[in-house]
C-alpha cells in the first residue's frame, strides 16, 4: 500500500510457553497511513504496548512481518534495527525515560548526537523543538526541576529530534493530570496538523478521541477499527441548546 508508514502482517508475539503461554499479540494485520493519527485502546494486558514495541522494533515478533517505511525490520540485524529505531521512529513513554543527569536540552540532543549530528546542529534542533513544546525557557533545567507535564513535553521534543517518520507513544498521559494531559494533546494536535504520523496506545478515551482512527484490542486481537474523523463536523451548539 503506497503511503503506509507502518505495515504489519500476521503479527504474533508469545511470552512464556506451555501452560503459561501468553499470546500477547495474536495474528494482527495493520497499516498506518502517512499523516494518520492512530489510537490503540484496550484494557491493560490486552497486548497494546507489546504491539507498539513490535511496530517500533523494540521487540521482535514470534511470527509475522513488520515494515517501516517500506523496509522490513523484523529480520534486520540488531545493529541495523537500532539504526531504524534511531532515525525512523520516535518513542514517547508513560514514565518519560529522561536521563536525570542531563538538562532538558541535552536530553533532546542526545538521539541526534547518537545519529551522527554535529553538536551545533543537535543544539539548534533541540532549541527549536523545546520552543515548539513551550519549554524554551527551561532548556537548562534538569528533569527533576520540571513538572510531569513538562518532562513529557521534553520527551516529545526528544522523540522528534531526528525527524522520525512515525512517533509511537505508549500511554503518554498515563502519569499526567488533566491540565498536563491537555498540553500534551495540544502538541499532538499540532504534530498532526503538520502531517506527522502518530500511533498512540492509551486506555484514556480523551486521548484516543483526538485520533483520526481508533482500533480496539482484546486478548491480543483487534475487535474494532473505527474512523473517528467526521465527514463534516456537526458543531457543538446542538449538543446543549434545545429549543426554548
Amino acid at each position: 500500500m503506497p503511503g503506509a508508514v507502518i505495515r504489519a502482517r500476521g503479527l504474533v508475539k508469545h511470552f512464556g510457553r506451555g501452560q503459561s503461554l501468553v499470546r500477547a499479540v495474536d495474528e494482527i494485520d495493520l497499516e498506518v497511513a502517512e499523516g494518520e493519527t492512530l489510537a490503540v485502546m484496550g484494557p491493560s494486558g490486552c497486548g497494546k504496548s507489546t504491539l507498539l514495541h513490535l511496530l517500533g522494533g523494540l521487540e521482535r515478533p514470534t511470527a509475522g512481518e513488520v515494515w517501516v517505511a517500506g523496509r522490513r525490520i523484523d529480520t534486520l540485524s540488531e545493529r541495523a534495527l537500532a539504526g531504524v529505531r534511531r532515525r525512523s521512529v520516535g518513542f514517547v513513554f508513560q514514565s518519560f525515560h529522561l536521563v536525570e543527569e542531563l538538562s532538558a536540552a541535552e536530553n533532546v540532543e542526545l538521539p541526534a548526537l547518537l545519529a551522527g549530528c554535529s553538536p551545533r546542529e543537535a543544539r539548534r534542533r533541540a532549541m527549536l523543538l523545546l520552543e515548539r513544546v513551550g519549554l524554551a525557557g527551561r532548556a537548562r533545567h534538569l528533569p527533576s526541576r520540571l513538572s510531569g507535564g513538562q518532562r513529557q513535553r521534553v520527551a516529545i521534543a526528544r522523540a522528534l529530534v531526528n525527524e522520525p517518520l512515525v512517533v509511537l507513544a505508549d500511554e503518554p498521559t498515563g502519569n499526567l493530570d488533566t491540565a498536563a494531559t491537555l498540553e500534551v494533546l495540544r502538541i499532538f494536535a499540532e504534530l498532526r496538523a503538520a502531517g506527522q504520523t502518530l500511533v498512540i496506545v492509551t486506555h484514556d478515551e480523551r486521548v484516543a478521541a483526538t485520533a483520526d482512527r481508533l482500533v480496539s484490542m482484546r486478548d491480543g486481537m483487534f475487535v474494532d477499527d473505527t474512523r473517528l474523523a467526521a465527514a463534516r463536523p456537526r458543531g457543538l451548539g446542538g449538543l446543549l441548546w434545545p429549543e426554548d
Partner: protein
Amino acid sequence: MQDAVLAFLAKEPAHGYHLHTRLRRALGPLGESLNRGQIYVTLARLERAGLVVAERAAGLPERPERKVYALTPAGRERVAAWLNEVGWPKPDLAEFHLKLTAAAATRLADPVALVAAQRREVMRRLREVQQAALAEPAESGAGPLLEGIVLRLQADLRWLDACERAWSGAGDAAGGG
C-alpha cells in the same frame, strides 16, 4: 434559557446584544449557534410575563437593540428561586437499555454489535468536544462546561462497557444452551 437570561440581568440592566455577548462567552464553542434573535425573543417573553422592563433610550426610534432591560422585583424573585432550585437533568438510559433487551429477545439484532456502534458514535462526539476543548483559550469561561461534557461522555463509555459485558455473557449462555 429564560432563567439564564434573567440571571445575567441581575447584576445590572443591559442591552440585548450585551447579554448575547456575555452568554456566548460563558458557553464558548457551545454558544456559537446562539443568535441574537433568540435573546430578543426571550426578552420579549420575559417582558410580557412582567419579569423585566425595557427602557428605551430617549429620542430614538423603537427597536429591540436600543432597549435596556432591567429586572422587575418579580424577576429578581425568580432569579433567587432559580439559583436555589436543586434540579438536575436526567440521562435517558432506559431507551437504549430497552433496545438491547428487545434486540436480544427478538434476535433481530446483536446487542453487542449495537453497543459497539453506540460506542463509535460516543467516541466521535467525544472527539468533537475534545477538539473544541483543545482549541479553547486557557482563560475561556467555557472550560468547566466542556470538561463536564467530556466527563459525561466518558461515563457513557463506561456504561457501554458494562452493557457489553452483560450482553456478551448472555449471548454465551444462550449459545451454550
